[in-house]
C-alpha cells in the first residue's frame, strides 16, 4: 500500500464533494433550457448551500437526537460511498474494505435514517414521505443488485474497481446483456434520486412529493447537509453507471503519474456533462407516474436486469 494511492483516494473524495452540487446545477440548467425557461446559474446550488449554512437552525420542540444526527449520517454515508466508487482511479485503498453489495447497503442505511428522521417529528407529511420512500426503496434495491450482478457475472468480482480493471482489459467486448442492465440501471437511478417518472424534485404539491416531504422539517445547516447529500447521491449513482457501462478514461491499476489522473478528471467531467444533459432530456420527455404505478415501473427495471442475466447465460457470450 503506497502513500500515493491514499493521496489519490483523498483527491477523489474531495473532488466528488466539490462537484456534486455542480452536477445537480447542470441538470437543472439543462431542464430549464429544454422547457424554454431562462436557466438558473450553474452555481445556484452552491449559493443555496452557502445561504443555508449562514442561517440559524429552527428545530421542532419534540425533535430527538436522531433528527439532529441524521444530516451528518446522510452526508457521511454518501462521502463514504464516493470513496468506494472508482470515479477517477481504481487503485483505491478504501475500496478493499467494502464491495458493491456493501455499497448498496450504505445507500440503504442513508434511506433508513432519513425515513426515521422524517417520522421523528410526527407530522403527517413526514410520515407520508417516509412510507413512500421506503416503498420505492425496497423495490429499487433488488433491481440495483441485479444490475450489479450482471456486471459481476461478466468479470467474476463484486468489487467495482476490479470490474473497471476487467473492462479495460477486454475493451473490445460488448456483451449484449449490458444493454438490458444499462436500461434497468437508468430506471433505478431515476427512481432512487427522486427524479421525474417517480418523484418531482421541484414540487411542493403534497399529494405527489416523496423526497421533499421528508425534508420539510429541516432548516439551515441541517437542510444544507441533506441537500448536499442528495446531490452527492446522484453524483455517486452517475459514477456507478460510468464504472459499469462507460469505464473509459478511469486511471487503472499501475497507471502512475499525473497524466492519467488528468485524463481521468477530463473524462469524468465530459461524461458528467453528457449524462446530465441525457437525464434532463429523459425527465423532460416523461410524465410523472402515479404513485401506484411505481411498483410496476420498478418491477420492470428488475425484470430487465434479470433478462440481462438470462441473455448472458443463454447466449453464452
Amino acid at each position: 500500500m503506497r502513500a500515493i494511492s491514499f493521496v489519490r483516494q483523498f483527491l477523489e473524495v474531495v473532488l466528488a464533494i466539490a462537484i456534486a452540487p455542480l452536477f445537480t446545477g447542470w441538470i437543472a440548467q439543462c431542464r430549464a433550457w429544454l422547457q424554454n425557461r431562462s436557466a438558473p446559474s450553474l452555481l445556484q446550488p452552491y449559493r443555496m448551500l452557502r445561504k443555508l449554512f449562514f442561517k440559524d437552525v429552527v428545530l421542532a420542540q419534540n425533535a430527538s437526537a436522531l433528527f439532529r444526527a441524521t444530516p451528518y449520517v446522510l452526508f457521511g454515508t454518501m462521502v463514504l460511498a464516493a470513496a468506494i466508487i472508482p470515479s477517477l482511479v481504481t487503485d483505491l485503498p478504501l475500496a478493499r474494505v467494502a464491495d458493491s453489495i456493501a455499497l448498496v447497503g450504505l445507500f440503504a442505511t442513508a434511506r433508513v435514517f432519513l425515513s426515521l428522521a422524517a417520522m421523528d417529528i410526527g407530522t403527517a407529511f413526514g410520515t407520508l414521505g417516509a412510507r413512500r420512500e421506503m416503498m420505492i426503496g425496497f423495490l429499487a434495491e433488488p433491481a440495483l443488485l441485479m444490475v450489479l450482478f450482471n456486471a459481476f457475472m461478466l468479470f467474476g468480482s463484486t468489487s467495482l474497481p476490479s470490474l473497471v480493471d476487467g473492462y479495460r482489459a477486454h475493451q473490445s467486448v460488448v456483451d449484449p446483456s449490458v444493454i438490458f442492465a444499462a436500461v434497468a440501471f437508468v430506471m433505478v437511478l431515476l427512481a432512487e434520486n427522486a427524479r421525474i417518472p417517480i418523484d418531482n424534485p421541484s414540487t411542493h404539491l403534497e399529494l405527489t412529493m416523496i423526497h421533499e416531504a421528508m425534508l420539510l422539517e429541516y432548516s439551515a445547516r441541517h437542510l444544507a447537509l441533506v441537500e448536499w447529500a442528495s446531490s452527492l447521491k446522484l453524483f455517486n449513482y452517475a459514477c456507478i453507471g460510468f464504472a459499469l457501462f462507460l469505464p473509459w478514461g478511469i486511471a487503472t491499476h499501475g497507471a502512475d503519474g499525473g497524466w492519467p489522473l488528468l485524463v481521468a478528471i477530463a473524462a469524468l467531467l465530459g461524461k458528467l456533462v453528457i449524462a446530465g444533459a441525457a437525464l434532463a432530456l429523459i425527465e423532460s420527455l416523461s410524465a410523472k407516474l402515479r404513485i401506484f404505478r411505481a411498483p410496476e415501473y420498478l418491477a420492470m427495471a428488475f425484470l430487465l436486469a434479470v433478462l440481462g442475466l438470462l441473455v448472458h447465460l443463454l447466449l453464452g457470450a
Partner: protein
Amino acid sequence: MHHSELIAQLLKVIAAGLLLISFAMLASRRTQQLITLFAWQGAMLFVSTCLVAYSSGLTEMYYSAGLTLLLKVIALPWILHRLIHRLGAQWDSEQLVNVPTTMMAGLALVIFAFGLAQPITSMATTITRHTLGIALAVILLAFLMMITRRKAVTQVIGFLAMENGLFFAATSATYGMPMVIELGIALDLLVGVFILGIFFFQIREQFDSLDLSNLESLKED
C-alpha cells in the same frame, strides 16, 4: 477472423436490442408508442440483415434488407399512423392486465425459446446461429402481446411484430429465405394490413369501438 468476430458480437447486441424492444412493446400502453416501437424493431432488423449480408457476401440479402427498410420502417408504420388517425384512435390506451405478471410470463417464454433453439443452434453453421433463440423469443413475445391485448389495432401490430421475429429467425438460421418467398411475404403483409384496415372500420361501425371482446359472442341477446 477478428473482423467476423466483431460482426458476430454486433449481431448479438442487435439481437438483444430486438428482444428489449419486444419487451417494451409488451409493456407499452399507447397505440402510437407501439407503432414507433414497431418501426424501431424494423430498423434493427434492417441493420442486422445488412450486417449478415456484408459478412456472408450474399447480394440478395441486401435486397431483402432494403425491402425491410421500405416496408417495415417506412410504409407500414406510416399506414398504421394514417389508420389510427382516421379512426381517431391515436390517443387510445388500453387497460393491460398486470404488466409485471405479463413480463414474468415473457421471461419464462424467453427461457423456453432458448431451450427450443439449442439443438438447432448446435447444428447450424451461420454467423448468426446464436441469435436464433432470441428470434424465437421475439415470435413468442409477439404471440403473448396478441393474447393480452383487446384492441384490434394493437393485435395487428402484434401480428406484424411476429412476422419481424420470423424474418429474424430465417436470417439467423439459414441466411434468409429465397427472394421469391420473401417478396411474396412482403406483399402479403402489405395486403394484409390494407384488408385489416378495412376490417377496423367495419368493426367500429358495428360495435362503436375497436374492442375485440365484442366479437366473442355469436348472437346478440
